[in-house]
């Protein structure tokens, strides 16, 4: 290190303001006089000037070609559930079939019809069970969902129940690596996914059931039953 150990009082401030181009005319003269007298101070100022020069020459980082597109992808609005269903329903699909497949499909249809008829007759001949009140049947049920993501900064929940908008249902970190949320849901069947760090969509690994979402991924499926149904 150069043995410039701060010179006469005020030199530091003068140098600092000189580098920030804030000196008045009188102060510039004052600094020049000091630089003329103090060799160490002069060398120090030259070092600082060289440093600033090299900093200005530092190259700016190259922005990758995919940068803007990636940001736009990350900020693209998530289609609502109805829109996803609509797209699946209205996207043209080519149906490939052969005789074996058609026979199997026909057999399934026949089997389904037979089972339905059997169930219908069974229900018609059975006395009606005790039915819970309408209020009980539709009362919200508190459902707690937990996922382990130790490296995540944020975890959110998107599903049929919140319009597939993950921002509406953030999870809270509970224990080390575990994230959880408790939500009230009316009895019914819901599909959902977790969103990790705002970009990675994952199905619940603990889900009992999963279903194809039509986009090459699988959604977790949640069957919420009313207390009355659950006790049957």
């Amino acid at each position: 290190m150069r043995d410039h150990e701060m010179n006469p009082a005020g030199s530091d401030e003068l140098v600092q303001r000189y580098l920030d181009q804030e000196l008045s005319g009188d102060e510039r003269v004052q600094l020049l006089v000091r630089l003329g007298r103090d060799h160490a101070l002069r060398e120090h100022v030259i070092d600082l000037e060289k440093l600033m020069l090299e900093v200005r020459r530092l190259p700016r980082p190259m922005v990758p070609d995919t940068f803007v597109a990636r940001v736009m992808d990350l900020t693209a609005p998530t289609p609502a559930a109805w829109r996803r269903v609509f797209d699946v329903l209205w996207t043209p699909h080519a149906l490939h079939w052969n005789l074996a497949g058609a026979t199997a499909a026909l057999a399934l249809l026949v089997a389904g019809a037979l089972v339905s008829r059997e169930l219908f007759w069974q229900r018609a001949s059975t006395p009606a069970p005790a039915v819970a009140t309408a209020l009980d049947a539709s009362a919200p049920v508190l459902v707690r969902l937990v996922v382990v993501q130790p490296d995540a900064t944020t975890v959110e929940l998107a599903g049929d129940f919140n319009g597939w908008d993950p921002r509406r249902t953030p999870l809270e970190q509970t224990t080390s690596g575990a994230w959880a949320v408790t939500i009230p849901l009316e009895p019914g069947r819901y599909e959902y996914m977790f969103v990790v760090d705002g970009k990675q969509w994952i199905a619940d690994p603990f889900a009992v059931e999963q279903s194809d979402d039509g986009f090459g991924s699988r959604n977790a499926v949640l069957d919420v039953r009313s207390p009355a149904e659950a006790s049957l």
Partner: protein
Amino acid sequence: MALDGAADDAALVRASQRGDRDAFGILVSRHATSVLSVTTRMLGPTADAEDVAQEAFVAAYKALHGFQFEAKFSTWLYRIAVNKCTDVLRARRPGTVSLDATDEDGVTSWEPADEDTPHRALEQGELAWELDQGIQALPPLYRESFVLRHIEGLGYDEMSTILGVHRDTLKMRVYKARNILCQSLAHLDGVRR
């Protein structure tokens, strides 16, 4: 009417707030270099820097509806980027290094973020590489002030808005950062003869 690349930031922000995604794309394209520059100088030339720059834009997009034009869009964006970098730095060294380190010992406690590879030194030039490493070895509070002042060329008033710190404090941090860098690069001919 669709906005083009000549529109000013305020017009593009207003259009983005109305849902014009093309306008937001222009803002991203326009400010990508500056944001990436800050994250790269703050975090080192790692994959983190690019990810954090992207996260800054995503965060800006999500919060855009609340932008009140009390500051320039670029100032607001810098603030988001710096906050993101601070989060990453805190996560990188939990419990070992204080971001508030203000003594010059911080120089030795912060290792360069990148490996010292001959290839890189040749590619970037020894002096620039050493300077880059020196900047990344600065204590974070000095580093953010130095980067905004001398890499991005901002004034102290704008820096004060970005960092929420009084300008006199920022001047002192920049001053100390310069001196630390000068000392740490004293062995190089380009900085010290």
